[in-house]
């Protein structure tokens, strides 16, 4: 056995909440994906190589020259006013009209999730999430001790009719909120269709629900007609999260929350204790960058790269994955979600993939109860196309071998 264990003499001092943090041996295995010889479908990384360094340096130099004093000083907790106005314009791109007063700038939208967890969840409170759901949201909410009700999704997004059933159950306690990623969901890549959005809003009105709408990928649509955001339909029912991580850069850590005024105020108080304010320098960079039309041109360019990579991945999956496998066909975003035969466990298969120098994220990471073992999330935005072809081919082989092994142990039928 001889593991390299972690003896921690401070264990007795840690809070109850800290023990609720989701831990994972997968994280350790995936630490290998940082190596250049590994083809990684694992992370959710945008492709920074597609961005023009000269333009970024020029914008940054302007900020340093013209805004030195402000850039290196503390800023308002709520965020830079000028940036808020820019973000209003960004949201308008998705047909969402907003007031700067309803915006709180956060250090990535991950901070917004953390603040939301702290603002709304008491231990034992019910919250509703999609299954599968964003792993970072699980990480942010879990330390507050919620009881998580999951609603499965299909190709049309969250199966809202099941949410309705859940809400009608006599013994169900009213959820504090419903967390959804309606556009090109992570990990599943699916988009919530109009009828489902209508129904969700209707349920929210009827049952007095708050919706957390997390929309990191909305502007990364490759094809098809965008659906209206939930926030634009029922602003008083929705706390909306935006981020520049996927449209500009994750390295600048600029995200935001748009919410009804009282909620924004409460979140700002919590944010103050978390970090006083987000980086002034980064906010000024974001503001300057968004003030120029290049951001749209660059985004268009990124989208073209991602679209082509998605197509390559879909084609490779078709060619190399076993016939029992199914996968989603995302119209945007960063991920494809693969469903393998029920009996397969992708976390047990991960070391075999790593041995073949590739990585993915096993489905269990995206379920609060660590179910979903027969799924895997594949990222197509980061690896170049020749790696996608190679990697999917190798992964197909690993899966076939694993299926044979299950067969020889008589585990391939229920």
């Amino acid at each position: 056995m001889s593991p390299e264990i972690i003896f921690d003499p401070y264990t007795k001092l840690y809070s109850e909440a800290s023990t609720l943090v989701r831990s994972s041996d997968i994280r350790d295995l995936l630490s290998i994906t940082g190596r250049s010889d590994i083809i990684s479908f694992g992370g959710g990384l945008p492709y920074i190589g597609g961005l023009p360094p000269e333009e970024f340096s020029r914008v940054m130099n302007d900020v340093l020259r013209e805004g030195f004093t402000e850039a290196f000083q503390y800023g308002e907790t709520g965020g830079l006013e000028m940036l808020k106005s820019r973000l209003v314009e960004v949201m308008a791109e998705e047909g969402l009209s907003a007031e700067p007063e309803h915006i709180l700038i956060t250090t990535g939208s991950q901070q917004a999730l953390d603040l939301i967890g702290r603002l709304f969840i008491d231990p034992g409170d019910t919250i509703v999430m999609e299954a599968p759901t964003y792993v970072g949201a699980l990480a942010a909410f879990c330390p507050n001790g919620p009881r998580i009700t999951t609603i499965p999704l299909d190709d049309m997004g969250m199966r809202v009719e099941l949410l309705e059933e859940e809400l009608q159950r006599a013994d169900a306690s009213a959820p504090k909120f419903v967390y959804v990623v309606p556009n090109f969901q992570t990990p599943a890549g699916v988009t919530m269709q109009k009828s489902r959005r209508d129904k969700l809003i209707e349920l929210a009105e009827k049952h007095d629900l708050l919706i957390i709408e997390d929309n990191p990928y909305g502007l990364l649509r490759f094809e098809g007609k965008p659906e209206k955001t939930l926030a634009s339909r029922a602003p008083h029912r929705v706390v909306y999260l935006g981020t520049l991580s996927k449209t500009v850069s994750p390295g600048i850590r600029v995200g935001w929350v748009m919410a009804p005024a009282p909620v924004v105020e409460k979140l700002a108080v919590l944010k103050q204790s978390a970090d006083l304010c987000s980086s002034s320098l980064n906010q000024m960079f974001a503001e300057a960058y968004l003030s120029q039309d290049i951001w749209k041109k660059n985004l268009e360019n990124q989208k073209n790269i991602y679209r082509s990579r998605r197509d390559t991945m879909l084609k490779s999956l078709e060619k190399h994955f076993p016939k029992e496998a199914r996968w989603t066909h995302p119209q945007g975003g960063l991920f494809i979600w693969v469903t393998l035969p029920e009996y397969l466990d992708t976390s047990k298969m991960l070391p075999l993939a790593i041995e073949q120098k590739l990585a993915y994220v096993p489905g269990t990471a995206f379920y609060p109860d660590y179910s979903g073992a027969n799924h895997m999330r594949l990222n197509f935005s980061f690896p170049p196309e020749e790696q996608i072809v190679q990697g999917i081919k190798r992964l197909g082989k690993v899966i076939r071998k694993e299926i044979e092994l299950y067969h020889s142990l008589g585990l391939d039928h229920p």
Partner: protein
Amino acid sequence: MKAKIAVLMGGRSLERSVSLKSGKRVARALVSRGYGVTSLDVDETLVPRLLSDRPDLVYIALHGKYGEDGTIQELLDIIEIPYTGPGPLPSMIGFNKVLSKELFRAHGIPTPGYYTLSSSTLQEMGASELLGDAWEKLGAPLVVKPAAQGSALGVRIVEKREDLPGALIAALGYDDRVLLEQYIEGCEVAVSLIGTEDPEILPVVEIVPGSGFFDFESRYTPGKTDYFIPARLDKKVTAEVERVARATHELLRCKDLSRVDIMVGLDNVPYVLELNISPGMTETSLLPLAAEAAGMSFEDLVERLVELALT
């Protein structure tokens, strides 16, 4: 002028992250003792680097495959650069649980009873038919583990017969040969030995996993694992544990260093589980903890291993 040392760490093993921690810490200790230190994350540039740098010594802070299985040791023998710890043969044997257990058995070193299965016997010879038999003979619960894997990765304790195939699948993720091993109830200890002939035996460390089993889960769940130095065993049992650990170290002809992991059964017999030739060197690893209990600082320990390797 103190020796020029290359510390090898990281690499492509599944224990990469632990190895990076071990390696960085070792490198810092060597720098503080005035050695010239280069840290190398093992990749395809390794051999050219070593050939052009020609360090006086390589410190192996690698864990798992390639670092602990004799691969790197063999390579260093070929290019004639001395290194810390045992040579290729003990490494190969120590890393392969089937080989080492057979050797233990042949030389009267107690080790839990076991069967071994490979993915090819399962797939091409219908070996799944014998699982019931193995289950009967070894008795429940039993431990399923990859034959060659440096840590608790892929290890499962199986209490119910129907969970056995799933555990095999998990273990086969790490190696295409697996062990079904008898589960020994008792007290788990680790014994670190420094030196080759007449090695110094460091205080015995007792490991108490909160989950009842020392697995990957308890590694990652805070507050689950505790330890005692020296182990809470009576004098006679401790002496027996030390005797067996030493016999194991000498049987595999381990040069300079090893850590022997032992399960002391309720019958007070020390059953050897395995031997490690490149034990962890992180702040919470067993070997440095044992050394500290023997009054040796981390820097002392590292320098001692270096001096042994250089003589």
